[in-house]
C-alpha cells in the first residue's frame, strides 16, 4: 500500500509537470513588465489584463488562425479522401501493383518533410502556386498521405470480402459502393486519422516557416515566431499573452476531445 502511494504521487507529479509550463505562461501573461523580472514564477502581485490587448494590437491572431484553419482542413480533406481511395484500391481492388504501391508509399514514412524543403520551395514557386495557400496544403497532404494510406489499409484489410459482393448484388457500381458503403464503414479510422492530421498540421512549423513565411500566408506558429522576433518583445507579459491566446484553440480542443486525441495519437501504433 505504501508503495502504491509513492507511485501515485510520482505519476501525478509527472502529469502536472507536463502542464506546468503552460500554467506558468498564463501567470506570466497577467504580470506587468517590471514585476515579471522580480517575480517570474509566483502569483502576480498586481493583476494586469492589458497584455492581451497589447499583444492583439501587434499580432493579428484572427487572420493567422484563419490561415491555420484553411491549411488544417484543406489538408485533412485532401489527405483523407485521396488516402482512403488509394488504400481501398491497394487492399481491396484487384490492383496488379498493390504491393509495389504500398512499398512506394512507405518512402514517405522514412523521409522527414523538412529534408526536401529546398527543392519543394523552388518547385512550389515555379508551379504558379506562389502566394496561394495550396502551396502549403498540397505538400502537407502528400506527406500525410503515406501514414494515412498504411493505417486505413490496415483497417480495410480486416473487413469481410462480402461487402462489395453485397453491394454489387444491390446494383451499386464501385464508386457508389465506395462512397456509400465503404466510407461509412471505415469512418472511425478516417476520423481518428483526421484528428491526428489536425494536430500535426495545426502545429506545423518547419515547412510553413519556409514556404509560408509571408504576411498573407503565415499560420499561427510561424506568426508567433515572427512576433517574438520582430515586434521586439522583452516584455514577458506580452509573450505570455500571445502564447496563451494562440494556444487557446488547441487547448480547448484538447480539453473537450481528450479521449479522441488519445485514440488518434495511439491508433498508428496499435494497428501496426
Amino acid at each position: 500500500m505504501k508503495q502504491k502511494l509513492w507511485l501515485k504521487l510520482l505519476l501525478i507529479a509527472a502529469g502536472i509537470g507536463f502542464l506546468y509550463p503552460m500554467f506558468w505562461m498564463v501567470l506570466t501573461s497577467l504580470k506587468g513588465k517590471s514585476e515579471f523580472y522580480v517575480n517570474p514564477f509566483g502569483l502576480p502581485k498586481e493583476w494586469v489584463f492589458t497584455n492581451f490587448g497589447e499583444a492583439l494590437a501587434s499580432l493579428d491572431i484572427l487572420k493567422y488562425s484563419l490561415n491555420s484553419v484553411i491549411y488544417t482542413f484543406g489538408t485533412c480533406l485532401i489527405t483523407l479522401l485521396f488516402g482512403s481511395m488509394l488504400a481501398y484500391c491497394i487492399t481491396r481492388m484487384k490492383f496488379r501493383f498493390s504491393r509495389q504501391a504500398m512499398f512506394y508509399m512507405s518512402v514517405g514514412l522514412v523521409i522527414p518533410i523538412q529534408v526536401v524543403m529546398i527543392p519543394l520551395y523552388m518547385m512550389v514557386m515555379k508551379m504558379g502556386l506562389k502566394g496561394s495557400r495550396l502551396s502549403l496544403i498540397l505538400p502537407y497532404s502528400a506527406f500525410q498521405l503515406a501514414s494515412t494510406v498504411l493505417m486505413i489499409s490496415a483497417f480495410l484489410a480486416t473487413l469481410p470480402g462480402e461487402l462489395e459482393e453485397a453491394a454489387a448484388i444491390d446494383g451499386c457500381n464501385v464508386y457508389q459502393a465506395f462512397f456509400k458503403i465503404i466510407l461509412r464503414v471505415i469512418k472511425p479510422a478516417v476520423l481518428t486519422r483526421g484528428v491526428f492530421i489536425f494536430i500535426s498540421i495545426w502545429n506545423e512549423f518547419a515547412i510553413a516557416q519556409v514556404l509560408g513565411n509571408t504576411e498573407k500566408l503565415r499560420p499561427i506558429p510561424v506568426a508567433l515566431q515572427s512576433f517574438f522576433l520582430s515586434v521586439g518583445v522583452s516584455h514577458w507579459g506580452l509573450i505570455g499573452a500571445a502564447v496563451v491566446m494562440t494556444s487557446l484553440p488547441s487547448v480547448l480542443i484538447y480539453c473537450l476531445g481528450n479521449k479522441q486525441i488519445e485514440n488518434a495519437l495511439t491508433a498508428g501504433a496499435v494497428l501496426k
Partner: protein
Amino acid sequence: MNRFFTKRAVFLFAFPGLALFTVFVVFPMIPQLLISFQSHNGAESTGWVGWDNYKNLLQSSVFWKAHRNTYFIVGCSLFIALPISLLLALMLDRTSPRVRAVFKFGALFPSVLSVTVIGKMWTGIYDPDWGMINSALRGIGLEGLAQSWLTNPDTVVACVAAAFLWQYIGLNCILFYAGIKAIPEQYYEAAVVDGAGFFRASVRITIPLLKDIIKYVVIVSTLGSMGMYAHILVMTAGGPGDASRSVLYQMYYKAFSMSQFGEGCAIAVIFIVECMIVSLIINKSIAREPIQY
C-alpha cells in the same frame, strides 16, 4: 469481381493519391540530387561542380558537429526518453484509474502545442538570470551549478534535446500503455502464481510482448529526432556559434543564410540516405515475428 473493379475504377482510385505523393514527395528529390552537383545561389545555377559540394561537406567540421548533435539527440531519445516512457507506462498500469486519468491528461498535453510555444517556454525555463532551473539551483544552495544553459556549447544540445523530448515523452508513454492494456490478463496471472514482482513481471512478460509497439516507437522517435530542426531554430538559432546545429539546421543555414543551395542539397541527399539506412537497421534488428497471445 473484375466487372465490378473495372480498370478505369482502379486507375481513378489510385491516381490522385499516387500523383500527389509523387509530385510533392518523390519528385523533389530529383532536382535536389541535381542541384547537389551544382554551384547554385538559389536563383540560378552557376555551373556544374562535380563532387565538390560533397567534398567540401566531408571536410567541414560543422557538418560533422551537426551529425554528432543529431545522433546525440537520437541517442538521448532512445536511451533516456524511451526507457522513462516505458517505466512510466508500466507504473501507469499499476495505479488507480483516477491517477491514470490525471497523468494521461497531462502527458498528452505537450503534443498539441506548437514548437514555437514549447521553444519559448523552455527558453524561459533556461534563462540564466531568472529562469526556473537557475532559480531552483540557487534556492537549494547549488549556486555553482547555475549557468547560462543555452549559450554554453557543452550544455546547449542537451538542453534543446530535453525540450524536444519533453514534448514527446508523454505521448510515447501513452503508446506503451495502450500496448500494455492489449496484453491478455492471464499472462500476469501466471506470473503472480510464480511470485514474480513488478520488475520481474515487467521484464519477463510485458516488455517482450510489447515488441511491436516498441519497434514502432523506436522508428518514430529515431526519425523524429533525426529530423529535428524547428526546436533549434526557435530556441537557439543553432547557436552559440554553430554549437547546436543539427544536420537539417545546417542544411537550412547553408541554403537560406549562406545562399549555397548546392551544398544545402548535398546535405539533404546524404541525409536521405542516412534515414533509409537507419530505418533498415531498425527494421532488421528488431525482428518482425508476429506475437501469438
